Every structure is written in structure tokens, then in C-alpha cells.
């Protein structure tokens, strides 16, 4: 790693850190202790590590899907809604299908993939056939998915006797991902996440599809001249991105919640967008930053318990990091543009 790379990584972290310390001081909280608590909350003890890893899996999976859509030049902000439809489809299977654990879990997870992919496909069709900007289609479809989940929870899928927005009845235990070591760690979820990331790396590097995605993303006009079908490539990107978001949603149902709750995505899809904005298209960096962000999310819940600070500080730190990194990148690019062509001596 050269020096420029290191500063471009450290400068945003330093700025975000200073801002965070300022925010903590504003709340009369001891900054070092608070930051220490975040680390402790994320990693101290097997249970915490398990929680962090389980928070990592859905973000990493959705992030993998976003690498694909970003490569095609698409802003798949609908990822959050695709997570929700994935969770809805998974719940539909989990609550109704009889049978043994391996079969039920497999079908539940596959249903999630289909649920997410269908929502992605709609956004893709709106983009390709209707020329509707994918950001607004995605946000719009997300609201619809969210409303549909809420409707199911207080309507047809309501708990016996009480229509409450706290969620459905927990699904039967055969639909839960098996956990290990008395923690909430489900090895299946982690394995799936790692496989997804490896698969994305393979697809992006070694397949014609990966090449086409990048061609369409970097220059749609010349891609068309070279015979790359832009529309079909865009649709496939949405299918993959949506399917992976749906997979993440299914894991939230089977691995974490064990029932359908409103807003089941909980902003994890949006968090995945932040991760990929920061990490770029390199798969292992996406995995790493997803882990870092998952640790911040899980760790900051300790702030509430121990220092009576709002746990949203974690989201603030994540947002600050990405904002400063993006702005810093732009600022450096501008300096390079305005620098004289011949470097001064010395």
C-alpha cells in the first residue's frame, strides 16, 4: 500500500473520529470510555462476537449484490425494500410449510431469494421499459413492501387475539437456523455470506456477465455499439442484487428474528449501500468494512445500557465516515486536477 492510499484511508477516519469525540463531549459523555464501550460491546465475549457476525452476514450479502448493481451503474437504493419482500416471502413459507428442518429452511431461504429478486426485477423493468429512475422506483417499491409487511402483521398474519405491530407469532422451531455454543451464531448464515462474497468475486472477475456489467456501467453507449445488450444486462443486475437482498432478508427471519416484524430490514440495506460507497467494488474490502460497520452497530447498543447515550451514535459514526471519505476523495481529485502539469522540483 503506498502513502497516498494510507492517507486517503486515514484522513476520513481521523475527521470522523474528531467529530464523534465532539458529539460525545456535547452529550457530556467521556469520549474514550464511550469508544471503548463500542469495541467492548462488539467483541468482548463469545456472545457479542456471535451477535456481531450475525449482524455482518446480511449486510455483507446485500453488499455483494450492490457490487453487481453499482458495476452496472445502477443506484439500487431499493435494496432495503428487496430485503423486506425477501423476508415476507421467507415468512410465507416458514409459517405454512410442514416438514423437517433441512427441507423447510432450504425452501424458506430460496423463497427469500425469489421474493427479493422479484422486487428487484420490477425496479429493473421500470428502469428499462418505463425509463423510471431506479432511485425513486426503489424507494417507492420499498415503501410499498414495508406497508405490505405491516398489513400482513396486523391483518392476515396477526397473532391470535391481538393485532399488534410488534410482529407475528414466532414461527415453529424447525424453521430456525441452528445455532452453536449457546450463542445466537448460526454457522449456516456465515457460510452463506462467505460463499456469496466469493461468488461475486468470481462472477465479476471471470465471467462474461461481469465484463458486460462493467461495460454497461462505464459507458452504456459504446457497450451497445460493441453488442452488449444493455437492457438485459441491467435486468440481470437487478435480479442478482434483489435476489441477494432477499436472501439477506430471509436470513433475518430464519436466523435472527424467527418471525416477521415491521421494518424487518432495520436499515441494513441502506447500511450496505454505505458500505459499498466506502469500499468500492473490491469484494474483500466490502466484507471487511461490513464487519467494521456491523461491529459499530452492535457495539453502540452498549452505549444505551452503560452510559445512557442514544445508540444511534453508531449510525452517526457510520454516516460521518462515509461522508468524509466521499468528500475527501472529491477534494483530492480536485487538487490533482488543478495541480500544474509539471511537478515542482524538490
Amino acid at each position, binding site marked *: 500500500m503506498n502513502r497516498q492510499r494510507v492517507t486517503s484511508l486515514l484522513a476520513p477516519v481521523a475527521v470522523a473520529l474528531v467529530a464523534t469525540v465532539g*458529539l460525545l463531549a*456535547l*452529550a457530556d459523555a467521556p469520549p474514550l470510555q464511550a469508544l471503548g464501550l463500542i469495541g467492548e460491546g462488539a467483541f468482548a465475549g463469545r456472545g457479542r462476537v456471535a451477535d456481531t457476525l450475525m449482524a455482518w452476514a446480511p449486510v455483507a450479502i446485500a453488499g455483494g449484490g450492490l457490487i453487481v448493481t453499482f458495476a452496472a451503474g445502477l*443506484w439500487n*437504493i431499493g435494496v432495503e425494500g428487496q430485503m423486506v419482500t425477501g423476508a415476507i416471502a421467507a415468512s410465507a413459507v416458514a409459517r405454512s410449510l410442514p416438514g423437517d428442518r433441512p427441507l423447510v429452511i432450504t425452501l424458506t431461504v430460496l423463497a427469500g431469494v425469489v421474493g427479493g429478486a422479484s422486487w428487484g426485477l420490477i425496479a429493473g423493468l*421500470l428502469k428499462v421499459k*418505463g*425509463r*423510471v*429512475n431506479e*432511485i*425513486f*422506483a426503489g*424507494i*417507492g*417499491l420499498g*415503501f*410499498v413492501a*414495508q*406497508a405490505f409487511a*405491516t*398489513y400482513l402483521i*396486523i*391483518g392476515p398474519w396477526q397473532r391470535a387475539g391481538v*393485532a399488534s*405491530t410488534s410482529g407475528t407469532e414466532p414461527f415453529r422451531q424447525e424453521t430456525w437456523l441452528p445455532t452453536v455454543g449457546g450463542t445466537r451464531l448460526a454457522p449456516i448464515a456465515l457460510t452463506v455470506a462467505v460463499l456469496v462474497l466469493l461468488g461475486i468475486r468470481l462472477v465479476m472477475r471471470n465471467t462474461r456477465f461481469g465484463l458486460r456489467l462493467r461495460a454497461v456501467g462505464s459507458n452504456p453507449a459504446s457497450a451497445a455499439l460493441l453488442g452488449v445488450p444493455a437492457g438485459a444486462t441491467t435486468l440481470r443486475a437487478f435480479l442478482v442484487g434483489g435476489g441477494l437482498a432477499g436472501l439477506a432478508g430471509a436470513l433475518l427471519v430464519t436466523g435472527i428474528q424467527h418471525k416477521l416484524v*415491521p421494518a424487518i430490514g432495520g*436499515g441494513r440495506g*441502506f447500511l450496505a*449501500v*454505505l458500505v459499498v*460507497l466506502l469500499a468500492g467494488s473490491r469484494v474483500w474490502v466490502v466484507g471487511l468494512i461490513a464487519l467494521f460497520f456491523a461491529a459499530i452497530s452492535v457495539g453502540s447498543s452498549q452505549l444505551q445500557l452503560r452510559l445512557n447515550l*442514544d445508540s*444511534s*451514535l453508531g*449510525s*452517526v459514526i*457510520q*454516516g*460521518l465516515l*462515509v*461522508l468524509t471519505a*466521499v*468528500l475527501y*476523495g*472529491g*477534494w483530492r*481529485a*480536485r487538487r490533482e486536477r488543478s495541480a500544474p502539469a509539471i511537478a515542482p522540483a524538490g
Partner: protein
Amino acid sequence: MEATLASIVAAAAPLIYAAVGEAITERAGIINLSLDGSILLSAMSGFAIAYTTGSVGLGFVAAALVSALVALVVAWSGISLRLNQVAVGFVLTLLGAALSSYLGEGFAHRPGPAVTPRPIPGLSEIPGIGKALFGQNLSVYGSLALVIAAAWILARHRFGLELRAVGERPEAAHARGINVNRYRYGAAALGGALVGVAGAAFSLDQKLGWSDGHTAGFGWIALAIVIFGGWQPIRVALGCYLFGALQVVALRLQDRVPGLAQILPSLPFPLMIFALVLVNAPALRRLMGRSSRAVRWILPEAPAALGRNFAPE
């Protein structure tokens, strides 16, 4: 009926500030996607300042400043750093929401000051529309005045014409001696300030106080209505009143139809998507003739240079 009409006009006021503000910004070619986070942040700041100082007016000013600052970050990142405005706007959406939640914790669920009702004597007794138009408070009157002023300035005033030129054809505007990026900064600051006023109009008038995620989703709804309303203040306002009507109706039916209140906020989005599909449908455009005034009124297009950065070299 009179009371219903009055509550629709009042309920739509915050949305009008946000949507008309964003329409002005977008008309100049800047897309400020941060609305949903920006409104949350300004709603919180407006309430916090009004709560601390006891002055509702100061609350509105603080809210306007906060959201203007957010909008200027978007504009700066696009104009000076040539970054993708959508990317920066999206990050600010999430950051604004998180900051409002963190900084607003101490002000959550507290009774605080509110805009005082100021019915205009005489006029507010006009049967039918009197109560809706003249029986409100300054925040609501302001929203009505804004629609009229924005529509007039954009259509007729020199400032509005130059602003539109900057958003449609920045190169041509530059060639005619208009400082494109100064206009864009101005439109971003003005639109942002109005987004901030929208936040304060929530927390100090329509949905009193502050709680986590207080205005959830309204920023996105405002962004949708800007498209739905074709970037024209009057039509944008009509979209806001339509949504205000839906809200009021849902509130009345809440007891009879459970869950309506939760589902309702998603309604503008299918409508918006439908409108966008229509707007872009080539068949419909051909059917109506390509560039007649009627087509442009019914099927408006986005400002040609929306989101495209301009460097005058």
C-alpha cells in the same frame, strides 16, 4: 366539510415547503436527495431551539439554517468537487436521520411551544373557504404565499427565468453571462432553507414536539411529489393537497379500518411511479404530438441538466 378542508390545507403545509423548496433547487439543476434526513434534522433542531429559547420564530430560523447548510454541502460536493450529487445526498439522508436521533434524545416526548393560531377577522368567516384559507396560522399562510410566489417567480420573473436556464442549458446560460454555479448555490441554499422550514412546520405546528423518526418518510414523499408535480409549484402544491387529503381521510377512518394509518404513507409512491411511467411512455408522447404546450403541461420533463455538474472552462 369546512373543518375538513381547513385541516387538509394545514396538513399539507409542511410538505408544500419541502416539495416547493426542492422543486426550486432541482429547477437550477441541483438534486438534493438528502430531504428525508434533512427534514428530520431540522424538525429536531427547530423544536430544540424553540423549546430552549421559548421562541417559535427562532426555532424556524434555526431549522432553515440547518437544512440550508445540508443543501450547501450537496451543492458544494457537486459544483466544486464534481462528485455525484446523488451519492452525497444519500449519505446525508442517513447521517441527518442518525444525527436527529442522537442529538434529539433529550428533547423527545416533551411538550413544547407551538405556532399560535391567527385567524384573520372577517375573511375567516367567509362560508366555504374562509376557514381553510384565512383561519390558520402564520406557518400555513406562509405555505400558501410560497406557492403563489414561487409559481410567479419561476414563470415570469427574471430571476426565475435565469434559474431555469441554468438548470436546462447551463452552457447557454454561461455564454449569456449568467454565473451558473452562483445560481446553483443560491437555489440550493434557498430550497434547503425551505426544507428546513418544512421540518419546523412539523415539529412546531402539524405534529407537535419531537420523537425518534418524527417525520419518517416525508422527505421521500416530498421528492416524489416534485416529480409527480412536474417541477411546477402549483402542480406540486396540488400533489401536496392530494396527500394532505389522504392523510386527513385516513385519520378519520382510523378506527374503522385498522392499519390504514400505517399503509397510507406508501400510497404516493405507486402513484408517482405510475406518473413517471406515463411521463416517459413514448407511445403517449407520440399520440399527443411531440412538443406542443399541452404535452409539456400534462407530461412535464425533468430539468435537462438535473444532477449534471457544470464547470465553466
